Each structure stands twice: as structure tokens, then as C-alpha cells.
């Protein structure tokens, strides 16, 4: 009897030990992965605050081990890249392009999604197939004909042109997502609001929109990041002229013209990614939802 009891205890103990080992192994492995995933960005971030001379002579990791060596930290990189390299202007341009290019497609999509979900009209089915079918069409298909159209309409290099281009490319997905959400609003809720004087427009503004906030927020974040991070559409329709360049086109130009000047490249790159990172860390829950929803964009 005593023997079996000790054996059981020993077995339990070894089981607990092996569980502990597994947990340690998993933790170490995940720590390793997280470090590998984070180090490239960390290197950029640290370098962007280092003196140009220090960047070029010693690796950024030396600054981590000896952070108090005099004269190696500076904010000049940011000052230079914001002014002389036009990154400040590009940042403003990016905001000017991104905000309307996010609001316009969501607005148009929300109206369309409401009609698709709650109104009956000839052509509804066709519109639906269009929205779903066009969702994965590569935007490369549109570039050349649109470029030609824009040349004729003198829209190349204008904000209006790029707002509408992003509106077009983002619209199928936006409509599809918002339809998915708006069509699940209970019918009772909508019928209960039908008192004297309500029109579809008032219903849409005062009932549907407030109820759809989660879906709208998710898509807003997705579209905002998409437009902010886009390079191709900006290259084609806005060009690389410093006056109109966005953070992405500006940075890609700098890689070409100043490929060795790491003090401006690192600070410039960090300026382009700071906005998405703020959105990411600030609104992570919606961000994940938006990305998951928007993962099929064409």
C-alpha cells in the first residue's frame, strides 16, 4: 500500500515537473519569436534618434548597451527630414488625402448598403452581384484607363482625383461589409421608428447610422490604414512632385535619392509609420476587427 502511494506521488511529481518544463520551453520560444519580430522596428526607432556620425560608424545596438555615451542622441534627424526633405509637408498631404478618402467611400457605401438591405427596387440583385464580384478585382486593372480619363479631365495630381480613386477601389468591400451589418438590424426596430414624417433619409441618419457604429468604425480604420500606407495609387495619380507627395511616395523617393543617408531614412520611415502605430495601439480592438473584415480586398 505504502509503495503504491509513493509511486503515485512520484508519478504526479514527475508529471508536474514535465508540465513545468513544457511551460518554460513555450515561454522561452515565444519570447524568442517576439524579440525577432520586434528587433527590425526597434533598430529603426533607435537609429532615428542617433547622431548621423554615430549611425554610420557603430551599430544601433551599441547605443542600447551604452546609452549614456555623450553626444550620440539627437533630434536633428527629425528636424531635417521634416523641413529639408519635405516630410512635414508630406505628412500634411497624407492627412489631406486620407481623411476624405476614408469618409467619402464609407458614406457612399453606407447609403448603398441601406438600400440593398431594406429597400426593394429593380436592379437590386445586379448591384449585389457587382459588389461581391468586383471586391477581388486587382486595382491594377483600373490604373491605365483611369489615368487616361484623368488626363482628359485634368484630375491627375489633384486631391479630388485621388479621393475618388480610393473611393472606387474601397467601395465594393465597404458596401459588402456594411450590408452584412445593416441587414442584421432587427426589422421590429426599424418598423417601430416609422411614425409620421419619417422618410428613408431620416431613418437612415437617426437610426441606421448610430446602430452601425461598430461596423463603420472597423471599416474606417481599415480604409484609413489602407490609404495612408498606399504607394501605387499615389504614385500613379498624384506623382512624386514634392508639393503633393504623400509620406509613402516621399519616403520611396528618398530611398532612391538618399539610399545611404540613414539619419533621414530612419527618421523619415518612422514618421510614415507613426500614424498607423498610434491607430494600432490606440484602437487595437477595432483594428483587429477591421482587418479581419477587410482581409479580402482586391
Amino acid at each position, binding site marked *: 500500500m505504502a509503495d503504491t502511494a509513493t509511486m503515485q506521488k512520484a508519478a504526479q511529481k514527475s508529471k508536474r515537473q514535465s508540465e513545468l518544463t513544457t511551460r518554460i520551453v513555450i515561454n522561452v520560444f515565444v519570447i524568442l519569436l517576439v524579440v525577432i519580430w520586434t528587433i527590425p522596428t526597434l533598430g529603426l526607432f533607435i537609429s532615428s534618434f542617433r547622431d548621423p556620425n554615430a549611425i554610420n560608424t557603430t551599430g544601433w545596438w551599441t547605443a542600447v548597451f551604452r546609452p549614456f555615451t555623450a553626444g550620440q542622441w539627437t533630434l536633428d534627424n527629425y528636424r531635417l527630414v521634416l523641413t529639408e526633405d519635405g516630410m512635414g509637408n508630406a505628412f500634411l498631404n497624407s492627412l489631406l488625402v486620407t481623411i476624405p478618402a476614408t469618409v467619402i467611400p464609407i458614406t457612399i457605401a453606407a447609403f448603398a448598403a441601406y*438600400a440593398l438591405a431594406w429597400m426593394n427596387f429593380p436592379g437590386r440583385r445586379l448591384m449585389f452581384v457587382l459588389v461581391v464580384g468586383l471586391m477581388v*478585382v486587382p486595382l491594377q486593372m483600373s490604373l491605365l484607363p483611369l489615368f487616361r480619363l484623368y488626363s482628359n479631365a485634368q484630375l491627375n495630381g489633384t486631391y479630388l482625383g485621388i479621393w475618388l480613386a480610393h473611393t472606387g477601389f474601397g467601395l465594393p468591400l465597404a458596401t459588402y461589409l456594411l450590408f452584412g451589418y445593416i441587414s442584421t438590424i432587427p426589422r421590429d426596430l426599424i418598423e417601430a421608428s416609422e411614425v409620421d414624417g419619417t422618410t428613408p433619409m431620416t431613418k437612415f441618419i437617426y437610426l441606421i447610422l448610430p446602430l452601425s457604429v461598430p461596423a463603420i468604425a472597423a471599416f474606417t480604420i481599415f480604409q484609413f490604414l489602407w490609404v495612408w500606407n498606399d504607394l501605387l495609387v499615389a504614385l500613379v495619380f498624384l506623382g512624386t512632385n514634392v508639393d503633393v507627395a504623400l509620406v509613402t511616395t516621399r519616403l520611396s523617393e528618398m530611398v532612391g535619392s538618399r539610399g545611404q543617408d540613414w539619419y533621414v531614412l530612419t527618421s523619415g520611415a518612422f514618421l510614415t509609420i507613426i500614424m498607423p502605430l498610434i491607430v494600432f495601439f490606440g484602437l487595437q480592438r477595432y483594428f483587429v476587427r477591421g482587418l479581419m473584415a477587410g482581409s479580402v480586398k482586391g
Partner: protein
Amino acid sequence: MSDIEESVLGRRTIQTALSILAAAALIIIFVWSFSFMRNEEAPKALIAVVALVVGIGGIWALFITVDNLVSQMPVRVRDFLRPYVFITPAFLVLLVYIIYPTIRTIYVSFFDYTRGSGAPVNFGLQNYLVILSDPKLLVAFRNNLLWLILVPAFAVSFGLVIAVLVDRIKWESFAKSLIFMPMAISFVGASVIWRFVYYRSLWGSQIGLLNAIVVGLGGDPVGWLRIEPWNNIFLIIIMIWLQTGFAMVILSSAVKGVPASLLEAARIDGAGEVRIFFQVIIPYVASTILTVTTTIVILVLKVFDVVFVMTSGQFNTDVVANMMYNQMFKAGQYGRGAALAVILLIAVTPVMIRNIRNLNKA
């Protein structure tokens, strides 16, 4: 006619007049603001404010004004037109920005059409034949294939393994955040980050992380982006780094859906953790794996920014989307560029058909 009726009638007339007036005012504001935004002498800040107000307010004003106009019409006309007030803008945008250009690109791809050649001439398949015989383009196809296989394979595998592992640690959400973070970074930003990692100093100490490690281990610094064909792998790594977080987040919610009783039963039957991973978890989340893989495949198919910024397609690293950009906007080979775009479209067609079919089922 009673006073009440008369006053109602009067109010209606006033309303109609007002909504027509509002529509006219809106048109004038639009025309004025667009010419103002082109005015190069206006201060930049003012243009910015006008642009934001017109861009955001304009679209709302447009919908409300048109709805107002429709409301003034006789009841039957009004009820018929109303849905179209909501749907027409979306339809027009799709028509101008996707439907017309797609048809036009397919059309142009069959013609000999270059910058300055005027109208497209010589109908035929020559663009496609040229593409399929040009050695440079064949390299681009090979590279695209490499991207299409390696990025989804590694991103999904890493994503799944990490999703399963972080499920069992206490700091799960923190770990997930850091792995997911690259997803927020633009391809251009990521390219600069990795150019720095891959950088080779020609003199002095190596400041690029990878070469510093190589030198630290006693090797010679390597020009990672110039050694063919491995340079493709170093570009692909960037994309894997970007996409793993996405795969992880989506697979993680699927992994959490695996019933605990199923795992428990497998453990009681004596299955090891590795076996559970392959024979319980993977079959259970198979459909999610398929979705994530499709999404990443579609994304990778159109990969452009990374190659454009890192190498511009030099050293045999070109891909179809970058080639298309160069053919269309640099070389002015419109027909050939269009044919390349059509090839991308053909590649996504199965997904399009599946989506529409699912719609018919629902």
C-alpha cells in the same frame, strides 16, 4: 379652398423652391472649390481647410440635396426614385472606377498600343505572346510563383504555431500585439526597416544587423539583395514578417474555438502535444487556414511596393505587378502592361467565382 389647404400648398411651393435653390448652391460651391483648390497662389493651409470641408461635407450635402429634390415629386415618382438616390452614387463609382476600366484594360491588352501611338492598332494576341517569350518576364513569373508559395506557407505556418503557443502563456495579448504590429506598417516603411537590416557597409564596421551577425561569426559581409536567386528570399522574408501577425490573429480565434473536451479526450488517449497539433487542431481549423491562405495569396499576387522600393526589380527580383507598372508608366507599353494586368485578373477569377456562388447559395 380653405386657409389651411392654401397655407400647406404655399409651404410646399416654398419647400420646392428652397430645395432647388439648395441644389444650385451646392453645384456653385463645388465648382468654386475645385477651381480654388487648383489655385496655386492660395495659401496651403486655406486650401487644406477647404479641401477637408468640401471633401467630407460635400458628399453628405450631395445625398441630402438630391433626396430633398426627390421628396418634392409626386408620391408615385418619389417612391420609385428613392432607392436610386441611395444606390446610384455607388453604382456610378463602380462603373467609372472598376467596370469601365476593367473592360478597357482587357480590350487594350489585345492591341498594339504604346505611348504616342494614338489609337490602339493591330488586333491580336501579340502582347501575350511577347510576355510569354520575354526572358525578363519569365523571371518575373518565376519570382511571383516563389512569392505565392513561400509567403502563404510560412506566414500561415508561423501564424498557426504562434497562435497555439500563445494560447498557453500568461502574457498572450502582449505577445500577440508585438507580432501583429508590423501589420500596421506600410510596405514602404517595412522596406526601409529591412533595407537597414540587410545593409552592407563598404568600409568600417557593419551597421546592418544581419551583416554584423555574419561578421561577428567570422564571415565576410554579404550584399543580401544582390546574390541571385537568394535575394528573392530576402524580399519574401519581409512579406512573411508583415503577414504572420495577420494569420496569427485570425487563426488564434479559430484555435480558441477547438472544444476543450476534444483536446482532453486526445490527451487521455495518450496523444502527445505534437500529434494533437497535427491530428486535432489542424483538421479543426482547416477552413480558417484556407481563408487566410486565400487572402494572403491574393495580396501577394499583387505585391508591388516591396520590390519597387527595395530593388526596383533589379538583380532578377522583378514581379508581375512591378513589371506592369514599369511597362505602363515608364516604358509607355500600354498594351503589354494591360496584358500583365489581365493575367493578374485571371489569377483571382476563381476566388471571384466562388464568392458569387456563395452569394447565390445564401
